C-alpha cells in the first residue's frame, strides 16, 4: 500500500470533488485507488452520487420557464426612481451629518466657551468647514508659468489655483504632512536649497534646515516626495555639500529639532520611503563598482534610529540579483517585497517575487515567472504574458486578467509600444500606454487585476514634441491621479478621476520649459 491511509483517501476523494487537491495529492490519491479496491468502490460511488445529484437538480429546475416578464418590467420601472431616492437619501444623510456636526460643534464650543469665556460662533463654522474637507482636497504643485518657480494649490477639478509662496526665490517640491495641515517644500531663498514648512494657506513659514549646504526632500517609488513619517513628527531630507558629489540622508524631529544621520550615501540615492508603521526607512543605492556606466540596484533598510542596517541583496541566493530599483512595503511594514532576476541556462531565466521579513532577515519566495514580472502584490503577479504584447495579472489560484496595449492603441499588427505602471499605496494600478502613433492612454487596474478600465474616453492630446511622463501620483484614497509630462518646450499637469473616467482631463501648464517637479495630494482626513 502506498503513502496515504484509507481515512486520508476518503477525505481526499471529497477534496478532489471540490477541486481542492494539489497535483501531488491527486497523484497520490490515484495511486492509492489503484491499489485499494474498497476505496476505489467508494470513490466511484461518490462520483456516481455527484452525477446523480447534478442530474436531479437539472431535471427539477431546468424545465422551469424562467422569470416572468413581470420581473423585467417591475425592475426597470422601479429602477428609474433609484437615482432620485439615492440622491434624496444621500442628501438626508449629509444633512443629518451636518446637523450632527453642528450640534456637536455647538456642544463642544459651549463647553469651551464656558471654560474660556469666548464666543461659540467661530468654532461652529470651523466644524462645518472641516466636514467638507473630502470634497475640497487640494493638490500642491510647482509651477514657473509666472516667470518664477512657486508652489500652487488647486482643487481636484483644477479650480481655485492659488500661489502659496509668492517668493522671488525658487520654491519647489511640495509635500503634504499626513494630517493635511502642513506643506514641506524646498526653497533657495537664503542662497542654499533649504527645507521649509508652511501651513495649508501658505502662512506660518518655518525654516527647518540652516546649514550652508543644499537640502532636498527625498523621492519615493512613485516619483512622489515622501519625507514625512506616518505620524507626521519627523521629516527625511538629503543634504549635499556645495560642489560635493555625495549626499547624506538625515532624519529631523520637527518638534525637538534633533537631527539623526541615517546613511552616508551617494547622489544616486533613490526610492527613499518610510515603512507604514514608521519604524524603518527603505532606500536604494547604486551598488555598481562603475557607477557612471551602470546601475546595480542595492536595496537597504535602516531603522528610524539610524541603526540595524539590513542589506537586502546579501539575503539573496547567488543566482539572483535585484531586478529593478523598486520595492513595496507590506501593509503592516514588517516586510518588503521586490522582484529578483535569476539567470539560468539560455531561455530558462526566471523572475521571482521575494518578501523580505525584516525582523528575521528571512526571504520568502512568493511567486516565480518564466516571463518578465513587473511586480507582485498580495498574491497577484503582474507579468508580461507568453505573448510579449499582453500584460497579465496572474492570481495565486491560476485565474488571470489581461490587457492588450496594442488593442488600446487600435493596432492590429505587432508593433513597439511603451507602458508605465504605478501602484498606489493600496495596491491599485494606473497603466500608462504610449502608442506607436504617439497617442497616450491611461488605464486603471484593481490590485488583483479583476477590474481593468480606461481612465480616458480619448487619448491625452499628442504634442509636437515627445513628452516624458515625469510623475504619476495617486491621492491617498485612490480617487485621483496626478500625471506630469515634460518636454523641452512645455511641462504640463493632468488630473485623472478614477470614479469618472469619461471626463477628459484639462491641461494645467506648469512651465514653458522642461520642469521636473512632483505634485503632492493633500491626504483625505
Amino acid at each position, binding site marked *: 500500500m502506498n503513502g496515504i491511509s484509507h481515512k486520508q483517501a476518503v477525505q481526499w476523494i471529497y477534496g478532489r*470533488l471540490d477541486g481542492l487537491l494539489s497535483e501531488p495529492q491527486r497523484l497520490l490519491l490515484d495511486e492509492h485507488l489503484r491499489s485499494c479496491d474498497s476505496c476505489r468502490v467508494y470513490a466511484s460511488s461518490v462520483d456516481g452520487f455527484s452525477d446523480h445529484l447534478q442530474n436531479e437538480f437539472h431535471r427539477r429546475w431546468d424545465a422551469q420557464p424562467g422569470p416572468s416578464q413581470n420581473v*423585467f418590467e417591475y*425592475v426597470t420601472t422601479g429602477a428609474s426612481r433609484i437615482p432620485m431616492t439615492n440622491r434624496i437619501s444621500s442628501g438626508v444623510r449629509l444633512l443629518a451629518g451636518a446637523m450632527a456636526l453642528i450640534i456637536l460643534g455647538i456642544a463642544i464650543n459651549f463647553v469651551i466657551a464656558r471654560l474660556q469665556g469666548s464666543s461659540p460662533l467661530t468654532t461652529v463654522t470651523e466644524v462645518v468647514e472641516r466636514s467638507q474637507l473630502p470634497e475640497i482636497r487640494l493638490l500642491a504643485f510647482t509651477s514657473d508659468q509666472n516667470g518664477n518657480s512657486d508652489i500652487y494649490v488647486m482643487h481636484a477639478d483644477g479650480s481655485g489655483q492659488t500661489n502659496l509662496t509668492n517668493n522671488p526665490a525658487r520654491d519647489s517640491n511640495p509635500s503634504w504632512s499626513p494630517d493635511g495641515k502642513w506643506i514641506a517644500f524646498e526653497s533657495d531663498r537664503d542662497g542654499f536649497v533649504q527645507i521649509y514648512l508652511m501651513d495649508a494657506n501658505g502662512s506660518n513659514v518655518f525654516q527647518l534646515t540652516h546649514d550652508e549646504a543644499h537640502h532636498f526632500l527625498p523621492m519615493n517609488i512613485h516619483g512622489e516626495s515622501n519625507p514625512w513619517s506616518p505620524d507626521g513628527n519627523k521629516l527625511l531630507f538629503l543634504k549635499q555639500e556645495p560642489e560635493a558629489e555625495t549626499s547624506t540622508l538625515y532624519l529631523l524631529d520637527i518638534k525637538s529639532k534633533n537631527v539623526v544621520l541615517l546613511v552616508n550615501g551617494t547622489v544616486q540615492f533613490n526610492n527613499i520611503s518610510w515603512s507604514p508603521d514608521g519604524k524603518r526607512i527603505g532606500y536604494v543605492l547604486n551598488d555598481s563598482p562603475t557607477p557612471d556606466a551602470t546601475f546595480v540596484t542595492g536595496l537597504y533598510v535602516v531603522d528610524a534610529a539610524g541603526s540595524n542596517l539590513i542589506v537586502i541583496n546579501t539575503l539573496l541566493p547567488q543566482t539572483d540579483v535585484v531586478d529593478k530599483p523598486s520595492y513595496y512595503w507590506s501593509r503592516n511594514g514588517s516586510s518588503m517585497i521586490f522582484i529578483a532576476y535569476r539567470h539560468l541556462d539560455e531561455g530558462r531565466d526566471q523572475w521571482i517575487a521575494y518578501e523580505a521579513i525584516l525582523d528575521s532577515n528571512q526571504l520568502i519566495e512568493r511567486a516565480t515567472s518564466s516571463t518578465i514580472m513587473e511586480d507582485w502584490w498580495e498574491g497577484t503577479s503582474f507579468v508580461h504574458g507568453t505573448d510579449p504584447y499582453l500584460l497579465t495579472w496572474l492570481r495565486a489560484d491560476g485565474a488571470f486578467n489581461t490587457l492588450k496595449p496594442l488593442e488600446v492603441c487600435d493596432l492590429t499588427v505587432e508593433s513597439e509600444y511603451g507602458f508605465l505602471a504605478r501602484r498606489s499605496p493600496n495596491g491599485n494600478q494606473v497603466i500608462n500606454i504610449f502608442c506607436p502613433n504617439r497617442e497616450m492612454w491611461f488605464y486603471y487596474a484593481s490590485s488583483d487585476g479583476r477590474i481593468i478600465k480606461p481612465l480616458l474616453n480619448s487619448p491625452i492630446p499628442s504634442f509636437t514634441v515627445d513628452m516624458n511622463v515625469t510623475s504619476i501620483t495617486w491621492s491617498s484614497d485612490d480617487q485621483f491621479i496626478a500625471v506630469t509630462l515634460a518636454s523641452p518646450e512645455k511641462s504640463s499637469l493632468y488630473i485623472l478621476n478614477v470614479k469618472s473616467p469619461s471626463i477628459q482631463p484639462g491641461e494645467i501648464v506648469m512651465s514653458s520649459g522642461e520642469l521636473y517637479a512632483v505634485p503632492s495630494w493633500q491626504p483625505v482626513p
Partner: protein
Amino acid sequence: MIIMDYRLIEGCRVGDSSAVESFVHTYQQDLYSLALSILDDSNEADDATQESFLAALHALDSFHGASSLKTWLFSITVNICRTRLQKQRRRERLRKILGGILQAAHPPSVEESTIELESGEALWRLIHQMDEKHRIPIVLRYYHDLSIAEIASILQVPEGTVHSRLNTARRQLHNVLKEGNL
C-alpha cells in the same frame, strides 16, 4: 467583459434606462435560476429576483469590484432568499402551532406540496429538510457549478467552511441514496 460590466454599472448608477434594461436582461436568468434553486418555488423566485435587482441597483455605489459583478449579485440574491426562507419557516412554525391549537388540518405548504407530489423521493425530502447552511452550498456547487472559492465569496465564509458544509450535506444525501439503492 470586465470593462463591459464596468460601463453597465456606470450607466445604471446614473439611471440610464437602457443600461438598466441591459443589466436586468444580462443577469435575470442567472438570478432567477439561483432563487428558484434555493426557494424551489417559481412565484417566490420571481419576487426574490425582483427584490435582488432593486437591492443591487440601490447598492451599486458599494460595489468596488472585489469580486465579479455576478458573484456580487449572487451574494445579494442568496441573502434575500435566506430571509425569505426564514420567513417561510416562521410562517410554517406558526401554522403548525395554530394547527395544533385548533386541532384542525391545515393546507399543505408549498414545500410540503412539492414533497407530496414527489413522495418517495427521499432525496428531495432531505434536501428540503436541510438547514440553509448546508442546502445552499450544495445547490451552488451541484446546480450552479460554482467553485469552492466562488461559493466562499458569495456566502462570505472561508473556503474550508464551504468544503466542510458540503461534506456534511453530501454524506447525508449519499446515505439516503445508498439506502434507496440509487
